[in-house]
């Protein structure tokens, strides 16, 4: 069953269209991540769902109700903010209780809910403290707790982990995932961190300029990006792009200068094969040395820079005068200036039309 549904949502600031006739359906219990660079409209969309921004056109349904004109507190949502947004003068308990008091809930019910939320988030010993006395991670737990006590169907997260350091971020990420598995609420999660998106999401919506580029499972988005933008945005280091031409009809190949990459194994999504195209292959899909020889395609490259990163090593090489990155094992003895053989399977690649930038 659909939990949150957005129909033709448009938002304008003056003449500037921030969201353009956007449609989105989110299933009950689904964990949806809105992903994109800053300014893509993902936080704006979340604020519209929360009712914190007045939309220009379209409709928003939550739990089957049209909430387009409802107040934020009437929408059955809980929200967690990047800066935690804890009320500094209230204790943790006060923070958790504030929304419930506003809803004129009986005292014992408030106490019950706070106890439960505190237990879930393991913040019982902190209840009497003020936010200033908490660490970043603890604050974010309280912020989540504030959404939790509202006992709502939909949780909205607005970059909740961005203010935390890397280690804490990883910890809380897992915790949020655990929480979702336990509560099974619908969660909409805004982030610009693709690791968070990939690890947490049931589905990811990649946004750009107020438009959803691709809405799909993390696996699909990673492996079968629908356009050049999504392909380039996902993955770090990014996908290698090689500009060239597709020739041949049946046994097509991708030609760039002297190199020919056979595309026989590539699962084309569309029938038409325009000439100019862009070939994309992720650094981790490239093998090197002896293994390369076993790939359907292999060639020699010259190594420019080697970046050991511990678990693996990133190698910057030159292929036909263009930069080409690939990932090798962390113990690899490769050195700059060396020439090595690399290879990959074109079936794992993505090919895009050079003009429309859409996947072929």
């Amino acid at each position, binding site marked *: 069953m659909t939990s949150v549904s957005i129909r033709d949502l448009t938002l304008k600031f003056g003449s500037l269209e921030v969201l353009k006739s956007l449609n989105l359906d989110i299933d009950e219990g689904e964990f949806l991540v809105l992903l994109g660079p800053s300014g893509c409209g993902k936080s704006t969309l979340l604020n519209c769902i929360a009712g914190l921004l*007045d939309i220009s056109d379209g409709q928003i349904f939550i739990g089957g*109700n*049209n909430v*387009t*004109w*409802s107040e934020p507190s009437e929408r059955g949502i809980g929200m967690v903010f990047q800066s935690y947004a804890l009320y500094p003068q209230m204790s943790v308990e006060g923070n958790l209780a504030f929304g419930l008091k506003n809803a004129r809930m009986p005292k014992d019910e408030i106490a019950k809910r706070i106890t439960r939320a505190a237990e879930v988030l393991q913040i019982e010993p902190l209840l009497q403290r003020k936010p200033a006395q908490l660490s970043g991670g603890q604050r974010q737990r309280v912020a989540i707790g504030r959404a939790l006590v509202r006992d709502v169907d939909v949780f909205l997260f607005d970059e909740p982990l961005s203010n935390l350091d890397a280690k804490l971020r990883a910890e809380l990420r897992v915790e949020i995932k655990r929480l979702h598995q336990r509560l099974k609420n619908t969660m909409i999660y805004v982030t610009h961190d693709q690791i968070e998106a990939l690890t947490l999401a049931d589905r990811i919506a990649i946004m750009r300029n107020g438009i959803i580029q691709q809405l799909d499972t993390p696996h699909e988005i990673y492996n079968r990006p629908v356009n050049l933008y999504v392909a380039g945005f996902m993955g770090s280091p990014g996908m290698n792009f090689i500009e060239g031409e597709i020739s041949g009809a049946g046994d097509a190949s991708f030609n760039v200068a002297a190199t020919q990459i056979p595309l026989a194994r590539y699962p084309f999504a569309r029938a038409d094969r325009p000439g100019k195209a862009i070939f994309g292959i992720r650094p981790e899909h490239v093998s090197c040395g002896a293994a390369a020889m076993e790939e359907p395609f292999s060639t020699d490259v010259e190594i420019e820079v080697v970046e050991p990163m511990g678990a693996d090593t990133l190698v910057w090489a030159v292929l036909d005068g263009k930069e080409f990155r690939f990932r090798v094992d962390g113990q690899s003895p490769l050195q700059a200036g060396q020439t090595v053989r690399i290879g990959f399977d074109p079936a794992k690649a993505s090919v895009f039309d050079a003009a429309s930038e859409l996947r072929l």
Partner: protein
Amino acid sequence: MASERPNRLYRNLTAKIAAIPMILTAVCVFLGGTAWTVVYSFTNSKLLPRAKFVGLDQYERLWGTHRWVVSIENLMIYGICSLVLSLVIGFVLAALMDQKIRFENTFRTIILYPFALSFIVTGLVWQWLLNPDLGLQSVVRSAGWVSFNFDPLYNADIVIFGVLIAGIWQGSGLIMVLMLAGLRGIDESIWKAARVDGIPLWKTYVFIVIPMLRPVFITTLVLITSGIVRLYDLIVAQTSGGPGIASEVPAKYVYDYMFQGQNLGQGFAASTMMLLAVLIVIIPWAYLEFGGKKRG
């Protein structure tokens, strides 16, 4: 389940109701009052406002009046001097205070306390200090320097500088604090970079820091200017415009003609000119400050 589409007017209704005092003040008092004054400056109202329009007569008389011209001259002299001196003194003091000195709080307290005093108090104190028979002049003379002459309040040529001394005394502390706040807001790494590059301190100030303090300078500039145009209390307390009309200022002209001379039209015309002067200063500033970045 969809509720009625709320009327645009009722959106944020409480906020609008809460803003009613502000809206009334802005529209009725500031806009309305200003417009009223400007309109009646074209009448020949005497003791009571009368809507008998006489065109630009009041303005012609205004600019033909010796005292008004003197007032404007005084305002220019006072204005330019106090602007330059306030900025220079304020900045130099702030720069000195920013040298991680000891007793910073004490010095700041000393320099700023006159700001807490009214212009009336300021004017009276300096009137007393500058009294030629009992004040500074007589003290210096009795100390042996008999020919010492410093009687700004009784010398028409320099009286405005006597007022200036008092005005600077009262107001420069504020400028210093603003400048200091600006200096403290400058990234520490700028200083470090300048030091590593071996740039002399004064050069760092002149070529790097002052340009960075542009917003502070503009704000203080506007503050000082709007204060200068309003200069009134100080004159009333310190010199009453004298000797003669040597220290008259426009604000006093307005008051005197409006209420004392029972010639409202003339007072309105003069105050409209003052408004014009302020607008000339404010509009470019507002344009610089708010025009560029629409919506914070």
